[in-house]
Structure formats: structure tokens, C-alpha cells
């Protein structure tokens, strides 16, 4: 089994607040790992550290055996780690096709030609179900469509690891089910995935393994069916964890 991602001794401190304490876990190639936890547990911070947007106070992030901790986000993308954002970050004035094309054109090493990027973009849009929105400006799309657009764009960078940040947040049950199918298909194509989810409706059906976070620590890890019955996880979601979930 190849080790895609390793996180060792990760700690994060903001001012006098300890956000993450001693996070250790690893992700195998082809696995789907879901990170769950109530608001304020530190999921977003952990996610942003892995994606390169925050430099950890202590600890390392290892990607395919390389220590990538000092790497900025754009470098990580070119080396095969793509991500999506909870609030979709699209290029508003560009068409859906152009959005995805840029992912292909800039996100790979070595970079393809413009025409190849365009073709790839068209294919990916079809894959996520946005083929009929090719020429529409991204700011005209609905939330779900923008999430799918971001997903297509992330895929266009030909990633080895895909990070999905709360991709199901605010979506209808039907949309979440659509997403689940899409993610499982991506997994079957050989992609490794890391998802965060605040509610559990997405991670449970798609993940091989879950990691439960509370107050910056890993409180449990294991397959979804076992984890959601874990009393500690229940307590974190329903007990003091939730009430204190004022701010993350």
C-alpha cells in the first residue's frame, strides 16, 4: 500500500489559543478519509494546513514521502494536491469552460497546451454534469453548480489527492446523493480523497475511514459505521462540544 499523505505531530496555535493538538494520521493511496467534528473542532484549520494555506506551529505534512510543509498552495497543486473551498472560489467573469480550462493549463507539470486544456475541460464538465453550462459565466451558476464547477476545475489539475472542504454544506439531500455517486466514481478511478464534513450525510456513505476531531484532538478513528456509534463522538456532537461551537 502506498502512503499518500502523512500528518505527524501537527500543532497549531493562534495567539494564546491552541487550535490543534498533536494530530497524527496517514492516508493510503486510493482511500477515502472523512474528517468529522463539531464546529470549532479545528477541521478547517487542519484542512488548510494540509492544503498549504496555513503554516503549522509545529509538525510536518508528508506527501508521497516528501516533506511538503513549507510548500505554498500553488506548488502543492502543481505536484498533485487539489482542493475545493466551502464557499466556492470561482472566476466569476469567466465561463464554466474557461474556469476548468485554467485548472488544466496551470495546474499540471509539465503544462499542456491551451487547446488540450480546453478539450480536457469540456470532458470534465460533461463528467460532473455541467456540459450545458459551458459558456455561462461562473457567477450566474447556483451554489451546487459552482461546487461542481470547482470540483471539475480541481480534477483538471490531474491531482493524486483531492481535498474537499465541506462540499455538502447547504445542499439538498438529492444533491448530496448526486455528489456521493460522483465521489465514489472518482475513488474507483484511483483518486485518493480527503473530505471534511460538519454534518454526516456525505462522509458516511463515501468514506472508507473516519477521523473524529474535537477541540483540536483526534478522539476516534475507524470505519464510519463503528464511529458514529462511538460514545465519545456522540458526546462531542451533542454535548458540550456543540454548545461551545460558537466560533471556529
Amino acid at each position, binding site marked *: 500500500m502506498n502512503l499518500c499523505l502523512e500528518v505527524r505531530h501537527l500543532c497549531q496555535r493562534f495567539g494564546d489559543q491552541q487550535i490543534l493538538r498533536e494530530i497524527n494520521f496517514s492516508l493510503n493511496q486510493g482511500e477515502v478519509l472523512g474528517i468529522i467534528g463539531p464546529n470549532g473542532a479545528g477541521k478547517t484549520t487542519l484542512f488548510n494546513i494540509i*492544503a498549504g494555506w496555513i503554516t503549522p506551529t509545529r509538525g510536518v505534512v508528508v506527501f508521497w514521502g516528501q516533506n511538503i510543509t513549507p510548500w*505554498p*498552495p*500553488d*506548488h502543492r*497543486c*502543481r505536484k498533485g494536491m*487539489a*482542493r475545493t*473551498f466551502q464557499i466556492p*472560489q*470561482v*472566476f*466569476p*467573469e*469567466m465561463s464554466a469552460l474557461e474556469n476548468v480550462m*485554467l*485548472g488544466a*493549463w*496551470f*495546474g*499540471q507539470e509539465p503544462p499542456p497546451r*491551451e487547446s488540450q486544456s480546453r478539450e480536457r475541460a469540456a470532458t470534465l464538465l460533461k463528467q460532473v454534469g455541467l456540459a450545458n453550462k459551458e459558456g455561462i459565466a461562473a457567477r450566474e451558476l447556483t451554489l451546487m453548480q459552482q461546487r461542481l464547477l470547482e470540483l471539475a*476545475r*480541481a480534477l*483538471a*489539475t490531474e491531482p493524486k489527492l483531492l481535498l474537499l472542504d465541506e462540499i455538502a454544506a447547504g445542499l439538498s439531500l438529492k444533491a448530496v446523493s448526486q455528489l456521493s455517486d460522483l465521489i465514489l466514481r472518482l475513488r474507483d478511478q484511483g483518486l485518493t480523497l480527503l473530505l471534511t464534513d460538519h454534518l454526516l450525510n456525505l462522509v458516511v456513505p463515501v468514506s472508507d475511514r473516519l477521523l473524529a476531531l474535537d477541540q483540536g484532538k483526534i478522539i476516534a478513528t475507524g470505519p464510519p459505521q463503528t464511529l458514529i456509534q462511538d460514545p465519545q463522538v456522540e458526546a462531542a456532537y451533542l454535548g458540550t462540544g456543540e454548545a461551545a461551537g460558537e466560533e471556529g
Partner: protein
Amino acid sequence: MLGKLHPSSVWALAAALALIIWPLFFPQASLYFQVLGMACLYGTLALAWNLYALSGAISLGHAAFFGLGAYGSALLSHYFHWSPLVTIGLGALASVVFGFLWCLVFRRLRGVYLGLASLAAVEIPKVIIDNWDSLTYGSMGLMGLEGLPSLALGKWEVALGSNLEAQYYLLLALVMAAALATRQIMASKWGWALRALRENETAARAIGIRTHRVQAKALLGSSYVTGICGGLYVHILGLVEPALVFSLHVSALPLIFSLFGGRTIFFGPVLGALILYPLEQLVFQPLFPMGHAGIYGVIIILTILFFPQGISVWKRAK
């Protein structure tokens, strides 16, 4: 190489032709040569400003680059007596050095705070030059600067310094070259990176664009061309002083022309310059001999209020 012809490009081509051949119908129009020539110079300046603006950065302090290029050229010309064509090119390097410092110091600034920093940054070269009397003659400035040289091509001699018509064609050629270069840039891969950076910096970084490098290239290119404009300006005028080249006016004009004409199309800034500058000089100056530059303030306010994308986009949308 020229690519597909967009309807707006056809208009641009037609306008360019008009600008080239009108003197055949109005010879001896020295005032118009002067005004349109300057308008072309400002058009180039606006294009240079806009290059940086394409990356999403609104600079309120481009006068720093203009003034450094102006003084760079003026001082080289004064002390070494090299031809202005040489000193202008070399003098603009001072602007690039400042641009480089700017990249380092303003690395994490965005939006409003970048604008403010750029506004404040003008004071640095301005006050230093103003006070370094021994080198720059301080606030007195330099007078009697050598004008543009005469170019000789075989039998033909063109006195760029004294012949207003020749000067006009030089400046026209410059702005056309700058406009074409801008067009090429915008269609290139780097141009797409600039656009991505402008529309959403986070997304640009997330898909692998080296945003800092992309923006730095834009700033350095912008500062160099702005410096060239500064150098040309003072050699045409024949004098340089801090209040002239480091003024708020110089910082404001390229911004106004670009916003008015349209930032996202290659000829937008030039359109703005060619419409507004002659308007201000030929219509407003006679009406208000003292405060005519105030019209620019009105224009910028109206532009942001009613057509924030610039008139070229506004026209196309109709």
C-alpha cells in the same frame, strides 16, 4: 498572429488609421499635434498603469515611477550628455528598481491598503529628490533639458525635438506599439494568469498559478514603461522638477483614462486618453484657465457611479 478579428478590434483599427492620416487633411495644425501627441503619451502611460491593474492591483502612486524615470533620464542627460534616446531607456531602470522594492515591501497588501501604500510611497522618491540639492538641484529642478534628437535615415532627417508633427508620429507609434503589446499579453498564457489573479486570487493560487511571480512581472513591466513615459515627457517639455513629475495629477490620469475607457479591453486606456485629454485641454482649459484639471475628478466619480466597467464595455453591452 493577429488572431480573430473582433468587432471592437475593427473599430480600433479604423481609429488607428484615422489617427495616422488626419494630418494629411489638416496640415499646419501644430496645436493639435501637440495635444494629440500628449494624448498618445498619456495613452501609453495609461496602458502601462493598466498592465499592473490587470493583476487586480489599483495603484494610486504611479507618479513615483513616472518621476523616477523622468529624473533618471534628466540627470543622465545633464551629467553625461548622452542622447535622450539612450537616457530615457536607461533612466527608466530607476523606476524598475523602485518597482522591485515595492514588490518586496507591499507583498502582502491588497485592495484599499495597497492603494494607500502606493499613495504614500510617492513621497519617498519625491522628498529625497526634492532635498538632495547637490545631485538633483532640489525643488528648482533642471531647466534647458536636451530635447529629443534628430534622427537621420539616409537623406531624410527628422527633428524629433522641434518638429511637432514628427513628435506626434513618434508618440502615436509608441502608443500603437503599446496597445498591440497589451493585446498580445492579454491573449497569452501570462495574460490569463493575470486575469485569474484579478478575478479571484485564492482560486488562482489553488490551481497552481504562481501569483506573486505573475504580479511581480506585471509591476516591473508597468514601472518600466511608466518610467519611459516620464523620460519622454521631460525631454519634450525641456524641464523637470519634483512637483511636476511626482504630482497627484500624474498618478490620477492613467487611472482615470483606464477606468473611463475600460480596463479589460486592450484599447480601453488609450480610448480614455484620446477622448478625455483633448477634451480637457481644448474645451475645459479655455473655459476654466485655473482649475480645469478638476474635470477629471468629476469624470472619475461619474465613471465609477454609472459605468464602472468603462465606456467600451458599456457600449458593447448595448
